[in-house]
C-alpha cells in the first residue's frame, strides 16, 4: 500500500504560488445606448403585485414616447440580493441599468466601483430640490451622489390603547415616562412585557444612543472614527439595555429578539409597547391587536423631545456598467419622482422620500403623523462607508447589546471591544 498523498505535498499544492495573482476585473464604464432593453432590478415584496402595478404604469409612461425602448423589470428576493449585486459587479454583462438598493448597502456598492456617479444628472433634475438633506446624505459618498432616495421607513412607538386606558396611563413623552409606563403594564399584565425590545434589534437601540449624543462612528474629512465607547454612546446603550429587566422585558425572553421578533410580539398582543416602523402596520393589523393600538414618536430623555430615528428605506441608482446610461437616469428619476412616489405609497404604504409627496400622503393618512413628526425632527443614518457591510455582517452592535443584557460583560468592556472591532472594520 502506497502512502497517501502527504500533508506537506497538499499544503505545497495549496500554497503553490504560480506567477499569477487572483483575478481582478478592471471596472468597465457602461455605454449609452439609446435603444434596446433597459434592465431594472427592484426588490421583491410580500405583496409584489401592488408594487408591480405601479412600476408597470411607470414603464408604460416611459415607453410611450420612446417606442424603440423596452423595460425589463425583475424582482430580487431580499435574501439573495447581495449575491445578485456581487454577481452584477463581477460579471458586468449581467448587470442591470437601474437598481433599487437598500440604503445601507449603497456605500459598499460604491466602494466596489459598482454605481455610476449621477451628481450632474441630479443637479439638472427639476425635482432634486424636493429631497430632504438628511436623506440626500444617505446616497452621498464623499461629495458625489450615487442615487436617489426612493422611499423611507422610520420607527416610532406603538402602544396598546386598551391597556393604557385600563391602567390610566398616558403615552410617554420622555424616557423616564416610558420606563414608568412599561413597568406598570408589566406589573398589571403578567402575560405581557412592558415594551418589547430585542438584543438583535440594532435600529431599535440606535435611537437611544443617538438621543444620548452618541453614535457608532463620527466622520470628519471623509474618515470615520468609531465612537461606540464614548461616554454618550455608553449612556445610550445603558438606557436601552436597562429595558431588559424582569419588570419590563425579561432578558431571557427578549435578548435574542430581532426587529421582526418585536413586531411579532406586539402584533400577538404580548407587549404594552413596541418600537415598530410605519412599514410594520400591516403585520400589526393582521395580528390580535388590530384596532387596539396607537402610535407616538419615540420620546428622548428630555421631556417632550423625539429620539432621532434611523432613516431606513431604499434608493434607486444606476449601475456603472449600465449599457443605457441616459435612459437609466431618466427612468430612475421618473420612478423616484413625486408622482410615482405617491402611487407607490397608495399601493404599498412606503413613505415617499420627496418632501412634497410626503406632505400629501400625510394629509391623506393620519396614521402617518407620528412617523412624519419623527422624520421632521431629523433622522440619522449608519456610516456611509463600505465598512458598514462588515460591521453589520459581524453583528458587532447586536453582540455588544447582548453581552451587556446577559451581563457577560460590563457596558465599558463590551463597548471598548465593539469599538476596536469597528475601528478595525474602518481600517480595511
Amino acid at each position, binding site marked *: *500500500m502506497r502512502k*497517501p498523498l502527504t*500533508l506537506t505535498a*497538499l*499544503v505545497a*499544492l*495549496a*500554497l*503553490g*504560488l*504560480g506567477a*499569477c*495573482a*487572483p*483575478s*481582478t*476585473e*478592471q*471596472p468597465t464604464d457602461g455605454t449609452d445606448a439609446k435603444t434596446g432593453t433597459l434592465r431594472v432590478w427592484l426588490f421583491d415584496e410580500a405583496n409584489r403585485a401592488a408594487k408591480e402595478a405601479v412600476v408597470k404604469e411607470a414603464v408604460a409612461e416611459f415607453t410611450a414616447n420612446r417606442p424603440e425602448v423596452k423595460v425589463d423589470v425583475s424582482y430580487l428576493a431580499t435574501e439573495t440580493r*447581495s449575491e445578485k449585486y*456581487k454577481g452584477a*459587479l*463581477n460579471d458586468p454583462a449581467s448587470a442591470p441599468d437601474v437598481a433599487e438598493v437598500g440604503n445601507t448597502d449603497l456605500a*459598499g456598492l460604491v*466602494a*466596489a*466601483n*459598482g454605481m455610476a456617479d449621477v451628481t450632474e444628472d441630479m443637479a439638472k433634475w427639476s425635482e432634486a430640490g424636493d429631497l430632504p438633506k438628511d436623506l440626500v446624505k444617505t446616497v452621498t459618498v464623499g461629495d458625489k451622489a450615487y442615487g436617489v432616495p426612493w422611499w423611507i421607513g422610520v420607527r416610532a412607538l406603538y402602544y396598546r390603547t386598551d391597556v393604557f386606558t385600563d391602567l390610566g396611563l398616558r403615552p410617554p413623552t420622555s424616557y423616564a415616562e416610558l420606563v414608568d409606563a412599561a413597568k406598570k403594564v408589566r406589573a398589571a399584565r403578567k402575560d405581557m412585557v412592558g415594551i418589547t425590545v430585542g*438584543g*438583535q434589534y440594532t435600529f431599535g437601540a440606535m435611537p437611544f444612543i443617538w438621543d444620548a449624543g452618541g453614535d457608532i462612528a463620527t466622520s470628519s474629512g471623509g474618515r470615520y472614527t468609531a465612537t461606540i465607547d464614548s461616554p454618550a454612546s455608553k449612556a445610550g446603550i445603558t438606557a436601552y439595555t436597562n429595558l431588559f429587566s424582569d419588570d419590563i422585558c425579561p432578558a*431571557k*425572553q427578549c*435578548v*435574542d429578539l*430581532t426587529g421582526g421578533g418585536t413586531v411579532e*410580539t406586539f402584533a*400577538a398582543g*404580548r407587549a404594552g409597547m413596541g418600537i415598530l416602523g410605519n412599514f410594520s402596520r400591516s403585520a400589526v393589523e393582521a395580528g390580535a391587536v388590530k384596532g387596539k393600538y396607537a402610535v407616538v414618536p419615540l420620546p428622548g430623555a428630555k421631556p417632550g423631545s423625539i429620539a432621532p430615528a434611523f432613516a431606513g428605506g431604499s434608493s434607486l441608482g444606476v449601475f456603472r456598467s449600465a449599457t443605457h446610461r441616459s435612459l437609466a437616469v431618466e427612468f430612475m428619476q421618473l420612478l423616484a419622482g413625486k408622482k410615482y412616489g405617491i402611487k407607490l405609497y397608495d399601493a404599498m404604504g412606503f413613505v415617499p422620500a420627496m418632501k412634497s409627496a410626503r406632505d400629501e400622503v400625510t394629509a391623506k393618512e393620519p396614521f402617518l403623523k407620528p412617523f412624519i413628526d419623527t422624520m421632521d425632527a431629523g433622522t440619522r443614518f449608519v456610516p456611509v462607508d*463600505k465598512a458598514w*457591510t*462588515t460591521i*453589520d*455582517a*459581524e*453583528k458587532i452592535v447586536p*453582540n455588544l447589546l*447582548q*453581552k451587556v443584557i*446577559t451581563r*457577560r460583560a460590563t457596558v465599558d468592556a463590551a463597548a471598548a471591544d465593539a469599538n476596536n472591532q469597528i475601528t478595525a472594520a474602518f481600517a*480595511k
Partner: protein
Amino acid sequence: MRRSATIRRQRLTPLWLLLPALVVLVPMFAYPLYQLGLLSLFDYGQPQVSGGVPARFVGLGNFRALFGDQVFWSVLGQTVVFAAGCVVVTLAVGAALAMLLTRVGRVARTVLSFAALAAWAAPAMTGSVVWLFLFDSNLGLVNEVLGLPGYNWLYERSVAFALVGAVVVWHSFPFVMITLYAGIQAIPESVREAAALDGAGAFTTFRRIIVPMLRPLITIVVIQSIIWDFKVFTQIYVMTRGGGIAGQNMVLNVYAYQKAFASSQYGLGSAIGVVMTVILLVVTLFYLRALRRSGEAL
C-alpha cells in the same frame, strides 16, 4: 482485493475510465481549490474583485490575523466539541436503530425506515425552521406540552447547542441507520444465527460480529459524519440566528461566513477555508492511520 487479471493488463484503461470524471473535477474543483489557496495569501475583497484595485499580496497575513484572533480559537474549540458530540450521538443512534431494525417485524421496519427517509429528505433549511417553530418560546408545541410557557431554548449556551445538535442528529442518523442496516442484511444469515445460538445479546453481536465485518462501511460512515458535522452551517445559522446570543453558539463555518463572505473579505474567508480543510484532513488521516494499524486499508 480481488483483481481482474485480464483488465489489469490494459495499463491505460483506468485513465480512460477516470477521464470523464476528471474532466469535470479538474476545472470545477482542483483549479478553484488552487485559487482558494492563492486567495488566502492576498488582501482580496469586493473593491479588488470588481473595482480595479490591485489585490495586495499579504503572505501569511490572513492566517496571522486569524490565529491572532482569540474568538477564532474559542470558536474552533467549540466547533470541535460540538461536532464530536454530534458524530458520536449520530453514530450511536444510527447503529442502535440499525440493530433494532434487524429485530422487528415487517410493519415496524417499514414504518421506521419511512420515517427515517422523511427526516433524511427534509432539506437542512426546512428541517431547522420546523424544529425552531416546534421549540418557539411562545407558539411552540414543546413548551405547551412541557408546561414551560415562554421558556427560551436558545438562552443557555449548552441548551441551545443541545437543541441544534438534536436537529443535526435527526437529519443525519437515517444515513447511518440505513447504511448499517443494509450492511447487516448483507452479512450471511448463518453468521448472525450462530451468534444468536451462542446466546449473544444485541450489543455483543454488534461488537463481536457486526463491527468487524462492516469495518469498511463504518469507516465511510464515520468519515462522512466527521466531515458533515464539522462543517455544519445551516442548522446553526438558521436556528440560533447566526451564532446565538452574543455569538455563544458560533461554529467555524458560520464564523467564516460572518467574518469573511458576508462582508466580502474573500482573502480572509479563503484562509479560514484552508484552515478548515487542513483540520479535517488531519483528523481523517489520523483516523485512517488508526484503521490501518488495526489491519484495514483505504
